[in-house]
């Protein structure tokens, strides 16, 4: 292993919260490193149009993320992305993070901003038929299902809104949801209910995908009765919510039952010198602006901790 690199602040995650913390920390002349497991920008790049980011006219998530990344780098923040973190040691005064490729980084403080990711169903055939019938983006892939029959999995705003959007292309859209009512806002439910191309199957879950190179069938379980049926289908769009990327942090910092990190108003976690920000923390509203706010507070709190 190469010599361990030492920083004042290591930020885990390169979404809106992490990049903001990177901008503030590096501008405060703290040596700052962002370690990011995915693409820079996080969930922000999934947003095609951003019209309500104060001070910025209509933009998209990719451009906003690119600008934040450029700002952070110009202040001296180092950014490493598309990597995999193997382990954390956050308990002592000096924090250690080891990557799967053997590189090791240390710091006097850590800001956890790993964000969240779309929830997959984790059932047989899901990985095999991704891109060959299974999709997580109606805007991206809807046109491949023109005149076909698709299932949308989920009961939140994304699921219902995307189901309505898919009717532009698909001949028939069936929404499959595990509960007997939807979590989406009432206006989204009404839009779906009045669309003649949309059907609903409630209290049911998909159990497996099958086909012959492309998706052909799904098996579907009706939860109250336990009865399983096989249904021919051309495509399945999965919008089953998001889960925080905190699995590796369990047992280190306090999490709630949804595996979100518990923080106080200064973004302090249960460990001294460890702060958290963005979609990974317990909070009600998840917007780019709230992530930016979290990142700012976490960075300022980390700076105060380092001075004390």
């Amino acid at each position, binding site marked *: 292993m190469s010599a361990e690199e030492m920083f004042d602040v290591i930020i885990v995650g390169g979404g809106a919260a992490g990049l903001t913390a990177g901008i503030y920390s590096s501008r405060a002349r703290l040596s700052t490193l962002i370690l990011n497991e995915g*693409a820079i920008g996080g969930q922000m790049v999934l947003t095609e149009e951003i019209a309500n980011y104060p001070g910025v006219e209509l933009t998209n998530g990719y451009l906003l993320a690119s600008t934040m990344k450029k700002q952070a780098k110009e202040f001296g923040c180092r950014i490493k992305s598309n990597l995999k973190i193997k382990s954390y040691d956050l308990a002592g005064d000096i924090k250690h993070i080891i990557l799967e490729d053997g590189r090791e980084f240390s710091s006097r403080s850590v800001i956890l901003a790993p964000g969240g990711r779309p929830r997959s169903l984790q059932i047989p055939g899901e990985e095999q038929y991704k891109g*060959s019938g299974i999709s997580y*983006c109606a*805007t991206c892939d809807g046109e*491949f299902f023109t005149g076909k029959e698709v299932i949308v999995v989920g009961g939140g705003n994304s699921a219902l809104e995307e189901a309505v959007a898919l009717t532009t292309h698909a001949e028939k859209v069936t929404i499959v949801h595990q509960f007997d009512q939807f979590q989406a806002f009432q206006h989204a439910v009404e839009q779906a209910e009045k669309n003649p191309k949309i059907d609903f199957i409630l209290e049911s879950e998909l159990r497996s995908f099958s086909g012959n190179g492309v998706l052909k069938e799904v098996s579907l379980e009706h939860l109250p009765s336990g009865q399983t049926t096989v249904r021919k289908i051309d495509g399945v769009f999965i919008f089953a919510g998001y889960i925080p990327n905190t699995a590796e942090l369990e047992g280190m910092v306090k999490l709630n039952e949804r595996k979100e990190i518990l923080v106080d108003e200064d973004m302090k976690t249960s460990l001294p010198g460890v702060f958290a920000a963005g979609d990974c923390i317990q909070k009600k509203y998840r917007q780019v602006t709230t992530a930016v706010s979290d990142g700012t507070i976490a960075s300022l709190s980390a700076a105060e901790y380092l001075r004390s």
Partner: protein
Amino acid sequence: MHKIQGNNYTLKKDKMKMLHTDLQEIESAAELEKMIAENENVMVCCGRMGPMCIPVYDLMEELQEEHTNIKFAVMAFDSPEAGIIRNDEACRGFMGLPFTMYYKNGKVARATSSIQNMQQVSAILDEQFSTSTVENA
């Protein structure tokens, strides 16, 4: 900036650049054919500026700094010229953006549909181009 059919097009002299990346953008089928004829190893991601495509561009930008023996490029899925990829036999049954092509000695060695992560792409580069991912700079 001109907004046409939901995509942002940036005027670049007499050309239209459709994808905002730091990767070389192929604008014609002839240009792609020339690239795969002149380079032993070529990876081309054919997509849009969407949530399934951007993460692949992002990791390609990192990989191109490390793998000088591979030519990395992007091509706009909505360009009529991208039919050379959309209609390739290797893409039969593909129903998820982006379509990512790996060319070895002028021929398609592998093609994938939908989003891929760094581990998946690196594994394909190792397998097809006999290379391994180098540490980030």
